[in-house]
């Protein structure tokens, strides 16, 4: 199974659209797409998870790795449009306290 | 389900009869010669398992129609020792070590659907289906 991954340049930064199930098999694809974006100095990256209906802990790990890389490069990573199931996982693991997760209305003007 | 037949497996002749019944039934349904050979091999493996490892067992053959297509259902029922750990038996790879359940992953791959119910001491029921393409 493959992830649907698309990037779009914004006036400031990049938006990464992700679609599909992020699990142990697809996580490497996400990593390959996401890491180069956050490893640029002072980058601004929005990850749109609207089309993601399932994510497992391996998938969360990719975001943890990206967060650490973003901090090292003074970059910003922001997750948007999480469905409830996905949002719950970020919340239970406490990741919502260290990763910038936008409410849906907040980000519509991005 | 319409046509039904069942063959008692007590001797090696029983295996051959079950094969024969399966071949004729699948031929009649219009299965290709390769699929006929596959169905027959599946029957053969199931019957041989009964013959070698349990005292008593029956191979059943049925024609099935799910509204869209026809198919053949093979059942293998025995009152043998049952299978202790189904998870192990159904593991793919190298299950040719003998014993009841040997070759079941092969049967599963020859057919389209496969189900097994087994409890130690209470025997085993295997149901497997092949659909006409």
């Amino acid at each position, binding site marked *: 199974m493959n992830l649907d991954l698309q990037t779009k340049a914004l006036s400031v930064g990049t938006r990464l659209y992700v679609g599909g199930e992020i699990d142990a098999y697809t996580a490497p694809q996400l990593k390959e797409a996401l890491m180069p974006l956050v490893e640029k100095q002072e980058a601004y990256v929005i990850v749109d998870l609207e089309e993601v209906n399932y994510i497992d802990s391996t998938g969360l790990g990719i975001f943890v790795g990206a967060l650490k890389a973003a901090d090292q490069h003074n970059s910003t990573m922001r997750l948007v449009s999480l469905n409830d199931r996905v949002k719950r996982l970020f919340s239970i693991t406490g990741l919502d306290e*260290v990763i910038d997760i936008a409410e849906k209305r907040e980000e519509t003007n991005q | 389900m319409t046509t039904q037949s069942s063959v008692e497996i007590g001797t090696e002749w029983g295996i051959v009869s079950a094969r024969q019944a399966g071949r004729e039934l699948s031929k009649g349904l219009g299965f290709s010669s390769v699929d006929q050979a596959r169905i027959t091999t599946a029957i053969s493996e199931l019957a041989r398992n009964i013959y070698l490892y349990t005292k008593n067992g029956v191979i059943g053959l049925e024609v099935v129609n799910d509204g869209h297509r026809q198919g053949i259902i093979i059942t293998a029922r025995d009152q043998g020792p049952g299978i202790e750990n189904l998870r192990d038996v159904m593991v793919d790879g190298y299950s040719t070590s003998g014993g009841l359940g040997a070759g079941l992953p092969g049967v599963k791959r020859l057919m389209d659907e496969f189900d097994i119910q087994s409890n130690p001491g209470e025997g085993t029921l295997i149901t497997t289906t092949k659909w006409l393409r």
Partner: protein
Amino acid sequence: MTTYEGLRDSYKQILYNFLHHKNEQSLYEAQQFSKRVIEEQISPEEIVSIHLEVIEDLYPNLSSETRKSFEILLEVMIGYGMAYREHQILKNKQLELESEIDVAANMQHTFLPKEIPQLADADIGVISVPASKMSGDYYNIVKDGNEYIAIALADIIGKGVPAALCMSMIKYAMDSLPEQLLQPGQLLASLNRTVEQNIAANMFVTMMYASYDPATHIFSYSGAGHEPGFYYDASEDRFNELYAKGLALGISRDTQYREYQQSLSVGDFVVLFSDGVTECRNGDRFLERGELAELIRKYQDKTAQEIVDNVYRELENWQDFQLHDDFTLLLLRREV
């Protein structure tokens, strides 16, 4: 007579019988022959070659087209022959690797407590089953001199060998903590520092750590991003969520962990588990937390160990014996 000649003679016999009294018996023999040649590791192109030799032998006036056509079939079968030999090599490799992993899995068993401590006033049951052979779930239950019980339940991200390697870190890190039991919050904070230093960037560990004081019947717990458990309130006959907010271990160096407390009355129990329990799935359908609670309720008259064993058995069956994640379920009930 070489094996090859023996096989050719058997094949010739089967083919001859079949052509003269075309019957199922011969086809059955052909199938048995197939098993035998596969056992003897004869490559499929050899079979095609034997077939041609035999029909040439049986029918000396075989048409030259038929004979020639076999050259093409043979050429195509050579490719399958390579795949077939690759298969045999792969099978041996796989067996080797599996037995290696069996040894490692056995080692891992020694990381988990050999027995559950017995308590005067509470009953504890636990079951932990890896999805594959090696587990990324860890638990521990210890009793100190004052009958204090400490319970640890951790889930390393992912499963299989990498998670198992990391699970051993949790085990040794726990072992090297001071002898006296720490408060749950302190313990997680200390463990987090070790994990953060040693873990790969995209890994983390979720954990619940609790202590139960049988004198006061207070269950104190802290959580590091772990799946919430249940607190069963006997007087109200109700399952409540047992949640401890906190960042998973290994993400940020100086994380602090809040401590929660739950007082247990007689018959109350707490249930801790890894997300392998709630992520049980049958096709696309996930188990709901409410269903899990109902399942526990169904067996609640039994001992703690019987409850967790039965819940596991039902869920194993429900998902066709295919665990998608390591499964750990622990229950502590106040008895008197």
